[in-house]
């Protein structure tokens, strides 16, 4: 039978949760819908309608809270859940003439019962939804320096999984599931005819409504790139990076030998960063270091192509920037002579948290032994700090605009002064001092004696416990960067109702989570510095539920991955990486997941705000 209402089905097909439906269920979907037209200015949901899930076909629905401030906007292709009444006093209104499709609640319930994937979509917490959306990343960390020079055939970890072109799509999918692979090689008469990936099943079969009985050849990618298993692994990696693919069949004169995936090559990539670190340690001048640092963008690209996640890339880059700083310090020392008193060079900010990205700002400080005498030793440390700051700038880490770096006299102090200064900041508990203290809570020794930092840290912990007002001020600061509300067509909606065409993924997503994690860690007395370790350590503690910690961590990793993909695309285009993402460049699913991440931050900020409001009231 020819599918009636195919036009409506095709409109719904790519929209989650309908994108999760199998082809039959998708075909049957339109007949379960009703259509409503809402005139601009009418209340949503329309009066007299039973609870339903709505899809905006055309138009726009706004939600405002009890105070009248804009909370959300739903436009073309957005799904609005009105299966339960809003009990938060908010009001929804059609702000444009809107054509709406509605799926009545009983039909939605039936769909959830019949389609486990749809049920999971609704049942899943926001955190799990984000985890689902995140790119897979490889967890093992074996590092073989020569992996990239070995024949690629040795890196392929699985026996080849193949199918004839005539096999049905359903059977092919079964075969992939059984072998637990995400790519299937289509082999015709011993010859490689094409390749089918999970993505093809979704995009070329499910989304287009192609019957599962069709031949798998109809959805395969062909012609397909292949490589001789005897070729060096780096060639396979280059081929994948160039084509933007994650699987490469291994084919020689005898036929199909196997399949190598990008994660198979990740080990080799780790080795890439190890090799670069080695090279950095052998550099003889700041100029050579700057040249070595010039390979960092390339390294990031290859890490990402190989499937590394944001946390892994952050660690790799931090390790290399640490290595650069160490080598610059060594070179400066060999110029200036040995240090007059012991010192520790510490990184703060994202480098301190092991969350370094390319082209960020310098954030560092010098902690000098208490034997330090300014008149005798000041010049040596000033020269050291200046040399390193200049060297780092040449390596792509810009001077800090706020001058929070060791080359500023204020940020070179003996242990005693640092301790006093922290104590002072904590007692003052004003906005600026809390901000400075927060920055220095991310302090991590890169080179020198970690024992120099310990007393400073002990002071911070002691004083914080005594000064609730400081924690309150730090909390207030942490709540200052609010996530955006969501999207409206190609614009990003921010609080207050103004829309912009760029989303600052750092300020509007990553920083708020880092700030929350820092406050929670402080309240729980955890010494961890990284955002994810802090969330893990503070989970189930006095201020953060295990659930809250998990959903914040998922959101953080999702946003980090988003930034990574954005910056990788910029690097490939030869642009300088930044944090500004255009909503227009985001896919529908990415938008939905991003909105879920905003909601997580919003929720956890609200929880924290309530907690501190309640505490300051008592």
């Amino acid at each position, binding site marked *: 039978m*020819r599918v*009636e*209402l195919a*036009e*409506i089905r095709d*409109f719904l097909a790519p929209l989650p949760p309908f994108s999760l439906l199998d082809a039959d269920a998708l075909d049957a979907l*339109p*007949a*379960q*819908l*009703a*259509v*409503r*037209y*809402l*005139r601009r200015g*009418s209340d949503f949901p*329309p009066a007299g*309608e039973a609870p339903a899930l709505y899809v905006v*076909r*055309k*138009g726009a629905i706004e939600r405002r809270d009890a105070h009248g401030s804009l909370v959300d906007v739903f436009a073309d292709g957005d799904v609005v859940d009105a299966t339960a009444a809003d009990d938060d006093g908010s009001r929804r209104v059609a702000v*444009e*003439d809107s*054509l709406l*499709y509605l799926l009545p609640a009983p039909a939605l319930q039936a769909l959830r019962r019949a389609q486990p994937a749809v049920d999971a979509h609704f049942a899943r917490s926001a955190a799990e939804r984000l985890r689902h959306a995140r790119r897979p990343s490889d967890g093992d960390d074996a590092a073989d320096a020569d992996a990239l020079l070995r024949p690629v055939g040795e890196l392929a970890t699985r026996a080849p999984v193949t199918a004839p072109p005539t096999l049905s799509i359903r059977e092919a999918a079964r075969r992939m599931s059984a072998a637990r692979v995400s790519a299937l090689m289509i082999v015709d008469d011993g010859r490689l005819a094409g390749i089918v990936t999970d993505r093809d099943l979704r995009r070329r079969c499910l989304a287009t409504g192609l019957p599962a009985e069709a031949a798998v050849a109809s959805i395969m990618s062909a012609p397909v790139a292949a490589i001789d298993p005897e070729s060096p692994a780096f060639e396979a990696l280059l081929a994948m990076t160039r084509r933007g693919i994650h699987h490469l069949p291994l084919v020689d004169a005898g036929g199909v030998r196997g399949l190598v995936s990008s994660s198979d090559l990740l080990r080799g990539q780790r080795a890439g960063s190890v090799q670069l670190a080695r090279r950095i340690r052998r550099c003889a001048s700041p100029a050579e270091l700057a040249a070595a640092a010039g390979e960092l963008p390339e390294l990031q690209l290859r890490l990402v192509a190989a499937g590394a996640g944001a946390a892994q890339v952050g660690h790799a880059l931090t390790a290399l920037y640490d290595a650069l700083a160490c080598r610059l310090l060594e070179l400066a020392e060999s110029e200036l002579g040995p240090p007059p008193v012991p010192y520790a060079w510490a990184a703060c900010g994202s480098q301190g948290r092991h969350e370094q990205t390319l082209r960020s700002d310098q954030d560092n400080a010098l902690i000098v032994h208490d034997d330090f005498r300014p008149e005798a030793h000041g010049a040596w440390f000033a020269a050291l700090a200046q040399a390193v700051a200049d060297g780092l700038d040449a390596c792509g880490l810009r001077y800090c605009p706020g001058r929070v770096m060791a080359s500023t006299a204020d940020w070179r102090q003996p242990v005693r002064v640092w301790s006093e200064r922290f104590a002072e900041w904590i007692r003052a508990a004003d906005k600026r001092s809390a901000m400075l203290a927060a920055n220095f809570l991310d302090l991590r020794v890169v080179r020198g004696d970690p024992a120099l930092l310990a007393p400073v840290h002990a002071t911070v912990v002691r004083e914080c416990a005594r000064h609730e007002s400081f924690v309150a001020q730090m909390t207030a600061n942490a709540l200052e960067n609010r996530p955006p509300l969501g999207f409206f067509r190609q614009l990003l909606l921010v609080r207050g109702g103004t829309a912009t065409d760029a989303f600052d993924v750092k300020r509007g997503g990553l920083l708020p989570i880092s700030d929350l994690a820092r406050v929670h860690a402080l309240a729980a007395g955890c010494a961890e510095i990284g955002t994810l370790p802090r969330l893990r350590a503070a989970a189930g503690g006095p201020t953060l539920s295990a659930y809250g910690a998990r959903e914040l961590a998922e959101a953080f990793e999702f946003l980090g991955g988003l930034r990574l993909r954005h910056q990788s695309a910029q690097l490939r285009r030869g642009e300088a990486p930044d944090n500004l993402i255009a909503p227009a460049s985001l896919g529908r699913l990415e938008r939905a997941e991003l909105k879920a991440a905003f909601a997580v931050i919003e929720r956890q900020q609200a929880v924290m705000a309530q907690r501190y409001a309640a505490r300051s009231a008592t």
Partner: protein
Amino acid sequence: MIRRLAGELRRRWLLARAPAGPRRDFLAAPWPPGGLPCAAARYLALDLETTGGDPQQHEIVSLGWVCLDGPRIDLGSARRRIVRIAGAMSAESATVHAITDDEAAAGVPLDAALRELLAALAGRVLIAHYAPTERGFVDAACRRLLGGGIAIPAIDTLDIARRLMPPGQAPAPGSLRLGTLRRHYGLPRYPAHDALSDALAAAELFLAQLGAAPRPPTLAEWLA
């Protein structure tokens, strides 16, 4: 008001003379009262694809319809029927409707499609864009296959579009076409010349017109 009254009288006159059968069943349902607000009435939006413009001479190729209960379109009621027609399709109309002779040959007899339509339409008001076509062809088909004519209450979205224009303004050429009017109301583009798509398109246009009316109309005001 007069139109509704005349139509209702015609229905009673036809009912009194109709033998038992689908036509009588249809005529037995009284027209909804003229004072009923349009937002509260029940409708069936219909579109016919035909081999030409003359109900006496040309044939119905396909029918598409969808029901509305007040301001709510029920997509579960959507139907599309291809008719197995007697004469060969002209190449021209086959191109327009994208229905080939093979498809038409695999269709249902007009008689079956007509009975199904009348059963769905009973007690409802017809919605069509330029209703004389749909009314004319259904009436002609009833005369040919069911032994006599029929009376169908109808709202013509083209007629409503004309009435909703500022007084004294003549419509620009093409401005009353279904697609143009839909664009005017910000409705999505649908593939044209598919009977069901066009029926749904007319139904949505009707809802948009209902929303745009200066005050809520009654059936008597809007019936064609």
